[in-house]
């Protein structure tokens, strides 16, 4: 009797299976972290990823991670869109000291890291790129921790605002540093000149066009929450796909889309959006994959002092700027320090950025990776905790959240 109806062994599982399984595992790990260790759920997702990943039990291989890269982009896209959508430029216009605070926070942080790395004899280009990456707070971590705690209030709002500003700052700066990288590797001047221009303006243009289209469509659909929700998610997904295909920066494109959608919507065609439970799915998978991508081996390779200096100086840079300018921007006494702590998480997509650079110039990427990825390993673990601590201490978390 032929048994063609039976699957061959081992059965061929699709990516859907993998995706679903990772979400379930991450979800359980996150809940366990919260329930048994009072840790943020994110920490649980990331630990689950690290255990399953290439450097853990290897159930998730490097190839799988590469195949799931689009999922990371999608998740990051949704998150930075929502972050941009929260950024109220009117607030910055009405409160100039707040603008000064946010800009100073980025600048101080960048220069402190840059100075420290140069002091440790890293080449300026390398130091500048590592510093730019370090300037960004992780949008995903702060958004997720804030959601998880149902945090509301001035510290939470300013944390999200500073994160949006330092994310834009970091990505623009990284893009502008590309020519130096090209020159170091003796690329042609056309390449050095046009690559950053293409990425920067291409991303902004793509975000703008998507925004204009989205506003038109939203106006046509009308004030129907359920329809607008689907529209927004679909527009984000398609824009991520386009940015990906055109080799633009997903983060810059999507944060532009978010910021413009909030600030260009003069007729208020868009309703306020809460991605809610739907987004949770993407959050879980993002952090499981980030956890799996953590390079624990990198951590051993570099002198721990450099990594420690990177982390400490980064915090001090942010803290100093916030303490100097924060009070002028109307933050309550003691709030500036908490805000600095809340901004500690380092962007997990630094991993992705480093990957991109590695693919461009393998040797250079390795050098950069050693410092940044080690810092990511450390901050991926303490970052969510820091944010959670700060928001709770500020009294902005829900009592039972």
């Amino acid at each position, binding site marked *: 009797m032929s048994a063609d109806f039976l699957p061959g062994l081992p059965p061929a599982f699709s990516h859907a299976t993998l995706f679903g399984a990772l979400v379930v595992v991450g979800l359980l790990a996150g809940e366990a972290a919260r329930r048994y260790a009072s840790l943020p759920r994110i920490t649980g997702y990331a630990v689950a990823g690290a255990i399953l990943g290439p450097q853990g039990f290897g159930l998730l291989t490097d190839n799988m991670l590469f195949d799931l890269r689009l999922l990371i982009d999608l998740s990051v896209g949704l998150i930075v869109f929502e972050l941009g959508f929260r950024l*109220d430029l009117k607030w910055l216009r009405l409160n100039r000291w707040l603008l000064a605070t946010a800009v100073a926070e980025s600048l101080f942080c960048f220069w402190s890291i840059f100075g420290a790395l140069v002091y440790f004899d890293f080449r300026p280009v390398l130091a500048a790129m590592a510093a730019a990456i370090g300037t960004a707070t992780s949008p995903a971590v702060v958004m997720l921790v804030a959601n998880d705690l149902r945090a509301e209030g001035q510290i939470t*709002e300013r944390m999200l605002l500073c994160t949006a500003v330092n994310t834009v700052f970091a990505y623009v700066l990284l893009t502008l540093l590309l020519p130096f990288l090209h020159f170091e590797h003796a690329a042609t001047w056309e390449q050095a000149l046009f690559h950053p221009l293409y990425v920067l303006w291409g991303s902004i243009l793509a975000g703008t066009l998507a925004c204009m289209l989205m506003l038109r469509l939203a106006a046509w659909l009308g004030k129907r929450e359920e329809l607008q929700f689907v529209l927004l998610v679909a527009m984000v997904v398609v824009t991520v796909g386009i940015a990906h295909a055109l080799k633009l920066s997903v983060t810059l494109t999507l944060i532009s889309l978010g910021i413009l959608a909030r600030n260009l919507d003069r007729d208020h065609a868009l309703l306020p959006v809460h991605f809610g439970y739907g987004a949770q799915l993407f959050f879980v998978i993002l952090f499981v994959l980030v956890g799996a991508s953590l390079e624990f081996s990198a951590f051993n390779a570099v002198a721990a002092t450099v990594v420690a200096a990177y982390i400490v100086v980064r915090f001090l840079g942010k803290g100093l700027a916030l303490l100097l300018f924060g009070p002028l921007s109307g933050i309550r006494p003691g709030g500036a320090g908490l805000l600095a702590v809340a901004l500690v998480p380092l962007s997990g997509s630094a991993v992705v950025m480093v990957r991109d650079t590695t693919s461009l110039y393998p040797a250079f990427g390795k050098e950069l990776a050693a410092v940044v990825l080690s810092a990511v390993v450390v901050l991926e673990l303490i970052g969510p905790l820091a944010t959670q601590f700060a928001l709770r201490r500020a009294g902005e978390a829900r009592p039972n959240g």
Partner: protein
Amino acid sequence: MDELAFTPSAPLSLGVEIELQLVRPHDMDLSRDAADLLARLSKRKLPGAVKPEITESMIELNSSVHANSAALLEELEVMRQAMVREAAVLNVRVCGGGSHPFHDWADRRIFPNERFRYVVERYGYLAKQFTVFGQHIHVGSPGGDEAIYLIHMLTRYVPHFIALSAASPFYQGEDTSFESSRLTAVSAFPLAGHMPFVSGWAEFLEYFSTMKRFGIVASMKDFYWDIRPKPEYGTVEIRVCDTPLTTRRAALLAAYAQALAAHHLTERRRQPSRTVYLVNSYNRFEACRFGVRGDIVEPYAGAKKKIGDDILETIALVAPHASRLGTSELLEELAAGVRVGESDAGWLRRRQAARGSLAHVVRDACARWEQGS
């Protein structure tokens, strides 16, 4: 009973308390920035006072004492401007209206002070549902007996104040079909309602000490009555108004209360009547549900008429006193609104029809408050 000694105050002096909504711009839901905003306002030299209210999404403006409503309005404008300016620094918006159209009461957080903690402990979810916004009007009285008399007289006009101030048509994301849905949240409290039918201050004190001995109340604050005496200020406090959408309307309502009080305290044409309390809950419901288009049973004559017509007749009746107080124009403005059937509740409903979403209604209401009268 010293706490209940009635401090005489200048007859017909006027003051208001106005509870306002704090709104976060990104989704127009209630925010919880009362403490930060209060801290900023405490650093400014302001007339009157600014105070916390039961949940962190509310803030209360207290005017100082005024001779008439025009002076009151001037002060309210100064306070409003300061508040709007400080709120902008925190990215918070401010608006009037008796209820937030779509907030979820369970999301509210209690402002951390002793009194409010006690209220939550005692009343449970009613405390969070009490995130509604009202205007209280204080009218000065020369003594306790006069205050009791004035309360009996003013009770007949409770439906007027409800209809004139109505600004809470939406609640929990729905159109309630009411002009003022806010008072339903107040009615749920066990000590809501009206003052008992006492003849003077001495009898009132007797009633109060009995209630205190029974352990039912600890202070006057425990009564959530529509109109109550406020002995330490020496005033009668009308508490049924929704917070209007503008300071100007708040001043119009105060002017009306003052003129009514002037009429009754000087002319003393009527004696307190139990019939007023007999028809009270019917009249009150009509006002909440239909506003000026509702029916009112006139307790002294026993006739039924439209609340709007009754208000216009009353304004004409008290006009001589308004003119003496220098508020004729304000009352004429109030009457003009009644004639065309205009109300804040109606304005909110029209915004909803034009905009298609309650978030936008809140945005428009904020703009209206922030713009000034």
